[in-house]
């Protein structure tokens, strides 16, 4: 669990671990990202697709957890599932950063429990970037 030392609320902006400046909504969503695509692939095998739990969301991006490291700088297609029973969002993500999630921050020799990655949602034509923005606005208002 985060905030084990209960510092949340004591200092404004004390926790800003990535590069997004806009408000981030702590929420659990699901992202499925496509690590590798080919022009004639009919079948997607396990290695190429990864389901990642989302930790927080903002209009311009999201932070997700992944069991393995993600390639920084890569543009990857992804489907985001926000709310049960509502449509998914097909987007392009840019992996901006990826860091090991350390269970024990003081001891670097402990292997990481996974990786956290900051992703930018690319406002590209041909994706559902507009619908995504509207969904995020709605989620912010209904949070």
């Amino acid at each position, binding site marked *: 669990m*985060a905030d084990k030392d209960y510092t949340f609320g004591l200092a404004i902006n004390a926790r800003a671990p990535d590069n997004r400046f806009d408000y981030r909504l702590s929420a659990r969503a699901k992202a499925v990202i496509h*690590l590798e695509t080919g022009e004639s692939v009919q079948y997607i095998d396990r290695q190429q697709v990864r*389901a990642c739990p989302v930790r927080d969301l*903002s209009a311009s991006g999201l932070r997700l957890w992944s069991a393995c490291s993600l390639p920084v700088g*890569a543009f990857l297609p992804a489907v985001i599932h926000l709310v049960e029973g509502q449509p998914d969002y097909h987007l392009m993500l840019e992996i901006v950063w990826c860091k090991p999630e350390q269970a024990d921050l003081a001891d670097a020799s402990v292997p990481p429990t996974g990786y956290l990655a900051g992703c930018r949602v690319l406002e590209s034509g041909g994706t559902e970037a507009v619908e995504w923005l*509207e969904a995020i606005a709605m989620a912010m208002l209904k949070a």
Partner: protein
Amino acid sequence: MSLKPPQPPASQAKAIDYGETEQVLNSIRVPDLPYPVSGDCDTQADVWRALMAQFWQQQSDVRVNDLIGAESGVFSVRQVNAAYLADRLMDVFLTSSGFHLELARRLARTRFYLAWQLDEKGSAAFSDSLLAAFDGLQYWRGWSPGAGRSARMLADQLDDMTVAITEAFAQQKSANADDFFQRWNELTQRQKAQTNHFHDRLLTTEQGAARQRYADQTARALVSRALQGRRLPAAFNDFIEKHWLPLLTRALRDGGIDGSDFRHGRKLLEWLVWLGDPALSDGQRDRLYQVGEQMTDRLLEVWQRIMDLALSANTLYGIQLAMMERMRDNSNCELHSTDACISAIAADLRWLSLKVPSATEINATSGRWYEIHQDNAEQRRYFFALLPDTAEILWTNGTGVKLGFQDFSEFCTQRECGLIKPLQDSVAFSCVLKQIIAVLAAAAAQQKRDRATAAAAANARAEALRRERQQREEQHRQQLEVRKVEVERLQLQAENQRLAKAKAQEEMAWQQRLRTAEKQVFGLKPGHWIVILDSAIRDAGVERMKLAMRLSTRHKMVFVDRLGLNQREFQEQELVERIAAEQIRVLDSGVNFDDTLSDVVGRIRGGHYSG
């Protein structure tokens, strides 16, 4: 005059703002907690209650949020926040309480009860009886499980609490728990009153005893010092030890070291020793007579004054004889070393240099709990009072039972070397509660403002993108129209000018190809592939690339390789021309990542993938 009926004294519970607690529960988002995306996620209260009841039944020592994080279900924002608030409250309160680990552990489990109640009732979860019982816990700071009969009482309460809360969960009524908290608080109050009574009595007794001890030890030390290295007639030794020492003790006890009684008694002791030891007085015969003549009267007078009765003739006889013998010229009285006498007195000379701590030192250390490490064991002791006469600490168990004395100086030394540690100052539960609610309410209000701003910005951005998208479609339509007109014009021209027919046809074919390419480029979506046929324009030899992003306003397209890397940008027009010139071809995009990913998402939801 006010018409209002008299109000009961406001308890701490009333100080907690209902609205603030509701705001925290319903809207705050603490980083990394498992909130659903939507705030109006519908989850059933009885599922939550059953889950909390289960954790309580297990008497788990884990945080609520750690436990629910491992559950597969979805919980509402309010439930996740109820868990967070219960965790934060109990953890912060108990960390600052200084309670024995066992007590802290047992109390910490009430987090499950709080998490249930907070979800169901909001700030009403903090009932008056619960707050009173938790605030009353300060009284039990010295508690440790191995402290005998007095420890049993709280241990029983903790067992009763387990039963009462289990009942509350089973009956779905907080009244079961509240009744218990009420009884617990009453018991604490009774215990407190009893302890105060015990402490008062103990202090009176121990102060008297300390005074007596001080008088006795100080008198012994003073006499012992006065006799050091002297040789006196036997009757002198005997008189001093058996009569004058008790007199000095009494004078010290009743009037203290600065009292006139003690001053007189001490002066006479000095004269007696001077008189008795020829080494001191034989050189001053005149003075010897003078002192000797007055001595009997002075002894009688001081004795009468301090002991409140006459010195018996018998007692006086022996010392009088010895004094007269000392006053005779060529006196030849038998002298004895004072060593035997000193050893009989068994004095501890340290009492003469007794250092009484200052009021500041006492204030800073007394009335507090300490943990004492001795022989690999720990004991909690309460520094109940400093006995000023003996500069000793009177330790108790916090419930009015004496645990022992300790020299203040020894206490200071042991504190310095870590054998004695003060328990940290503890903060009452209701104070911790108020602080946490205030901090979180402020954060929740800030988040709400931030979310409104973020929503407005996202909506504005969506609107702008939508407009761009429409503009782009319109532009494309116009472009195709222009191209069509151009082809028609060329066709006409070809018919009219037979000579230039070949050139015009060539131009027309080019325009046709451009038109096809424009359609293709317009239709390209992220995930679609192109192949670069002309090796001269390949980047690092990469032949096949897929579209990753298209920036409509800037007419820019970004392509990447199959791993999403090695970006390459094309202007739309450049791409159109290269396709028309057959340097680049749009591959038949048989794979639409949308479709395949949707398929995968479906399979993951169906449980075929674990990621």
